[in-house]
């Protein structure tokens, strides 16, 4: 649905997006992650045709975004981060306007608009002036508008930034419903609890696409196993470190502050047996705990790695 080849954009000497190759499949929710300034928004703006890449190609639903912009643009819907419809128009008028701009066949227009408003549970408010709506309702109008021409591809730019957690859950229900109707969704987000709901994730840092995988796959690849946290008294610290190096189940040790984070192949086994073994070695473990690796960990880890390699370069 989205296919880019070496997509690059340069502002002066600054390379904001550097040879990005994306391949987003039909019908998936593709999450796009990265720290502020990583080039996420710039990438999304290029994919939507708001920016022209300096180098490389972009295909949207098979249409080249640079050469056949009009055709490519009719195949995508875009919901910007900031509400950007006309405040002084009624909900219905906003949708009607965009349905016309996208040249939805005249005979289908009324029906389509009604269907989108129904989906967003807005039909009964259709004659309200958009500017008077609450933030959450405005976002729903925005989403309905992005869908009015039934695009096979939907871009969401941090769709739930500044939205309360309950409403965020509601929105993700909408997104899943939209996905079920066969729409591919490309979503920029900062929230890891949202990222985990995506089918696949792309991680971007410093203009480069670092990795693309499922949320689970990312954890596996980045962290390389399961995690266990171990606390010992500071005086035992050096001894513990030495001991853990020879312990076969431990793949990696990450001392952080007062604890050791152990990346292991089988965390259950480690939690069960390690305390006893430490005891035998004369080290008294204070506490041992299974850790659920979150996407946050993955994120921080990846960004750190990226930073290191860059600094060395």
């Amino acid at each position, binding site marked *: 649905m989205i296919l880019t080849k070496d997509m690059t954009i340069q502002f002066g000497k600054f390379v904001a997006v550097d040879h990005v190759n994306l391949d987003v499949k039909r019908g998936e929710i593709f999450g796009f992650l990265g720290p502020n300034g990583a080039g996420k928004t710039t990438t999304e703006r290029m994919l*939507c*045709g*708001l*920016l*022209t890449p300096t180098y490389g190609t972009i295909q949207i639903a098979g249409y080249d975004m640079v050469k056949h*912009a*009009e*055709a490519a*643009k*009719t195949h*995508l819907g*875009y919901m*910007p981060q*900031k*509400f*950007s*419809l*006309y*405040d*002084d*128009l009624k909900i219905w*008028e906003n949708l009607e*306007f*965009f349905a*016309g*701009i*996208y*040249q939805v066949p005249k005979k289908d227009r009324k029906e389509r608009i009604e269907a989108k408003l129904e989906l967003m549970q807005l039909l009964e408010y259709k004659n309200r*002036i958009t500017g008077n709506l609450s933030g959450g309702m405005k976002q729903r109008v925005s989403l309905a*508008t992005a869908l009015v021409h039934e695009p096979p591809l939907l*871009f969401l730019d941090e769709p739930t930034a500044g939205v309360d957690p309950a409403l965020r859950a509601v929105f993700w229900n909408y997104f899943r419903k939209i996905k079920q109707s066969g729409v591919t969704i490309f979503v920029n987000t900062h929230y890891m609890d949202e990222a985990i709901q995506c089918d696949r994730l792309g991680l971007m840092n410093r203009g480069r696409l670092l990795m693309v995988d499922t949320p689970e796959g990312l954890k596996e690849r980045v962290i390389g196993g399961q995690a266990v946290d171990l606390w010992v008294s500071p005086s035992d610290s050096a001894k513990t470190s030495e001991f853990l190096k020879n312990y076969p189940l431990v793949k990696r040790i990450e001392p952080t502050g007062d604890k050791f984070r152990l990346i292991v192949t089988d965390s259950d086994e480690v939690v069960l047996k390690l305390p006893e073994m430490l005891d035998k070695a004369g080290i008294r473990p204070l506490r041992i705990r299974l850790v659920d690796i979150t996407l946050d960990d993955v994120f921080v880890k990846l960004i750190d790695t990226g930073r290191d390699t860059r600094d060395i370069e």
Partner: protein
Amino acid sequence: MNAERIYLVIKKEINLLFRSKGLILTALLLPCIITLVVGFAFTGNIKNVPIIVINEDKGHGDLNYGLVLTNQLSRSDELDVKYFGNWLPIQSGIDLIRNGKYSAMVFIPQDFSDRVLLGKALVLVYVDGSDPVVGYTSSSAIVTVVSQIGSKGGVFVQPDFLFNTNVGVASSSIQLNQLRFVIPGQVGVTIAASLTSLAAATIVAERERGSFEQLLVSPITPAELLMGKILYHVLLVGIVDIVTCLFVVTVFLDVRIAGNLMLVFLMLFMYAIASTGFGVLISVISKSQIEAAEVAIFSLTFQVWLSGIVYPIRAMPLILRPVAYMLPLTYLGDGLRALMIRGSDFATVQNDFIAIIIYMVAMFALAVHFFSKRID
């Protein structure tokens, strides 16, 4: 270009207009008020200019032409005579003008009556040159009255403009008490001011609101969007402005349109398109509404003073004249003056039409060009 998209942009703008009271006021009512008030200021005749008359005429027997002249001057609507007889020295009279109490002085010499009978009399006239309009008015009124004195004619007047050497000697035939010639230009300024500033806000407003992005990701082309914006402004605001301006000018300000009304309308209509195009161009290249407003106001000020509607282009320094000929208001002012006041035909204003059309097309092309570039 897709006609439906253009139509939708127009419809959307009209919807937005009628939802915003402030916009209705500025777009539709303000031009009407401006035409009425400013135009009204230019319809009046200059009346009752205070002047001094010093009469030293000793008369010729029963005849005293000095007194006759004074009476005639008093009867003139334009003048308000303060009679000083023969006791005020000329220099004191000039001081009174300098103090701003009077605008002119007529000095009748002691042998005036004798010389009138001989057919070679002289009257001295001093005029305040610091306000040329009032100065010309009073001096021309005085000259008119003086030339009717004596059966044989032969009374010479020599108006002397004080404080302003550039004004020089007034040519006696200028009739400046009718300022209506300013009105066609003023109608043009009103329409330009209204449309340029409204249009200047239009794209920047979308940009600031964010709706611009929503439009840019859609398949609408720059030409379609700009065409819709221009047509909306011209077809609604422009036509309402033109009609109210012409109505106010003919009905309330009592200016008779001497030429073809359709031509006047057509010229104003094209000028409205050009002004809107200019506003849209400003809008496309500006980053904020304030910046756009600033540029619009500055360019309008430029047009008002340099387009020859207030001050004749012929009187401008050579180096400034090309600038004047680059301004669309120059051609509108010229054309409307010909059509509205002189009653000229199409052939006379043909070049003005061509200039306005060129301007119109150029503005649109430039706006589309910069719009496409600014997206990146």
